[in-house]
């Protein structure tokens, strides 16, 4: 029973609320940087409500089930992984062996749902976007895994999120060590790509392929995708906070620290996206498999040496 509460209340509602709020912060900060006013605080929510009220068009000659199921699969992936992360964050003991692996697996589901939806659209630009998304996954997953490997090594080869959190509560956060800091930098870059934000937004590059994978989506399908992306804006930084920064705590002054950690990560993502042009997909692959992987390997090496 308690798991259903986690799933609905924490996994969906709380994540969605914080995600929408984070999306508003992202849009507002971007607007202020660009001499604009920016949207009101409820705008992300209004967008989604408005979209779900619109007609959902399905292109002629495509598999209706695949086309419409893709966003739902992505959203359920995000809800599941958020619930998993919240459970670990609130009740460290209530965990199972290998939940870290499950979390990484579930975090890949949204990208895969976008690929599914893109190829199901039957639009050349959407398939172009989907193939770019596929190349992007191939490029960032390797350094992301290596970065996630660092906390695993440091906490004595534990693949339970709860134990990693316990380790950090006892021995200080991962970012206190050199290996942890390097791994966090690598992970933030990978999160930027996972969120498909500039400079890694080529799957939906508006001025190149007109929204790419999302080009054929309208109405509630698009609303679900938007909600999924906004929720990811909470889930992915939350994952990094659990792995590298000792998780979020809701008691007293720690609540303030938690908010600072999270808002700091979101602000960093926003700054990166506002100070860079979009790179080409081959440049992205070269970037992730070159310097980023090298930094990640150095971090893993340092972690083995206990630094």
């Amino acid at each position, binding site marked *: 029973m308690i798991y259903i509460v986690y799933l609905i209340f924490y996994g969906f509602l709380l994540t969605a609320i914080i995600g929408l709020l984070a999306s508003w912060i992202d849009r507002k900060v*971007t607007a202020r*940087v*660009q*001499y*604009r006013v920016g949207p009101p605080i409820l705008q992300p929510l209004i967008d989604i409500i408005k979209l779900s009220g619109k007609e959902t068009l399905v292109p002629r000659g495509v598999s209706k089930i695949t086309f419409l199921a893709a966003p739902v699969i992505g959203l359920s992936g995000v809800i599941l992984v958020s619930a998993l992360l919240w459970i670990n964050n609130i009740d460290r003991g209530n965990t199972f062996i290998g939940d870290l692996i499950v979390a990484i697996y579930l975090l890949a589901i949204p990208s895969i749902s976008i690929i599914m939806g893109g190829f199901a659209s039957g639009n*050349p*630009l959407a398939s*172009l976007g989907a193939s770019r998304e596929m190349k992007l996954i191939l490029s960032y997953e390797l350094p992301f895994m290596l970065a996630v490997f660092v906390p695993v090594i440091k906490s004595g080869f534990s693949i339970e999120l709860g134990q990693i959190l316990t380790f950090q509560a006892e021995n200080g956060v991962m970012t206190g060590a050199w290996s942890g800091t390097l791994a966090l930098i690598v992970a933030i870059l990978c999160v930027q790509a996972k969120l498909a934000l*500039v*400079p890694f*937004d*080529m799957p939906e*590059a*508006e*001025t*190149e*392929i*007109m929204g790419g994978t999302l080009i054929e989506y309208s109405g509630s399908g698009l609303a679900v995708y938007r909600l999924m992306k906004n929720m990811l804006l909470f889930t992915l930084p939350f994952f990094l906070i659990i792995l590298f920064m000792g998780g979020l705590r809701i008691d007293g002054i720690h609540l303030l620290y938690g908010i600072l950690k999270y808002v700091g990560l979101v602000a960093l993502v926003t700054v990166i996206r*506002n*100070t*860079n*042009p*979009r*790179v*080409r*997909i*081959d*440049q992205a692959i070269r970037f992730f498999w070159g310097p980023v992987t090298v930094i990640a390997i150095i971090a893993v090496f340092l972690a083995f040496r206990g630094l």
Partner: protein
Amino acid sequence: MARTIVPIGPYHPLQEEPEFFTLTVDGEKVVDIDVKVGYNHRGIEKLSEAKTFDQSTFLVERICGICSTSHPFAHTRAVEDVIPVEVSERAKYIRTIIAEGERIHSHLLWLGLAGHFLGYNTVYMWAWKLREEILDAMEILSGNRNNYAMFKPGGVRRDIKYEDVPVVVKKINSIVPTLEMLKKAVIDDPVLHARTKGVGVLSKQDAINYCALGPTARASGVARDLRKDCPYGAYDKMQWDMIVTQNGDVFDKAVVRILETFESIKIIKHCLLKLPKGEIDLNIKNIPPGEGIGHIEAPRGEVFHYVRTDGTNRPVRHKIRAPSFMNVPTFKATVIGQTISDATIILAAVDPCYCCTERMAVRNIKGKKLYNGEDLVKLSQEKTERMRR
């Protein structure tokens, strides 16, 4: 290997005007490109034949929202060439000020759009914010932000008041620090280098073969600028530099435009401070029969107007050639062999202006056959026949 066609247009967020590029791609690589314009044909040349010389100056101002000074400038020079007559010194200076103001706002507009095409929206917003200051300055001078309506055959319509000069100079000076910062942000950004250097290279030989004009040619090392080569207005009265770079890639085209903006600021300030006294209008009453040519350096390259008159108050023939007409074909040399991601910025790099370039194209319902003039006459007669029945 299977080849896909990626359409850019007729309506696409990349370009603000209707145009149609058919990119034949092999994976991400472009193997062929076809360009079609003609979605927005307005028949300006024909309309101009039904208007007086003063009226058609206003008409050509509406050819393009951005080159709204270049076309009247070239047109008035063509009409003056028929007589022929030289306008007064003061009118020349005022014309130069307006033309350079247009160049600054046009180049800033391009810089912003180029940033937008690369997903760099901060550059987009900042460049357009700077552009507002220039538009305000132009509003102080002419009363309008974009279509200045300052030109008439024989001079200019409005004088510049001496009390406006310090305000305008102050406004123009105020953008220089931010522009310097933007210049550094664009020229020194390593990610921008990765995206634009060596991309869409137009070699010097290609630039000459395709008759590329303006910044597009100057970025490829073709040192050609009408303001230097065939001085008009007040350009020969002062010291300024022609910006020429050698590589011909997207980065060099951006550099040429940014540096030209600084030169334009220099020219405007010089003109405003050294504005000579005198008449602004020659009050031309009669245009004799004859032919006249007016060409000036617009922000995108050479604008060319030809006017033939028969002694009445209307032109018999008015021919317009906008710079994009010459620059758009260079896509054949620059886009093929690049990726789709680069194709968009290469297409934008010549600062194409389609509404200037519009030519009529007629095709049947299957979209294949283009009619020639005789076919069109026949079609029109057939339709009249049908109507009569």
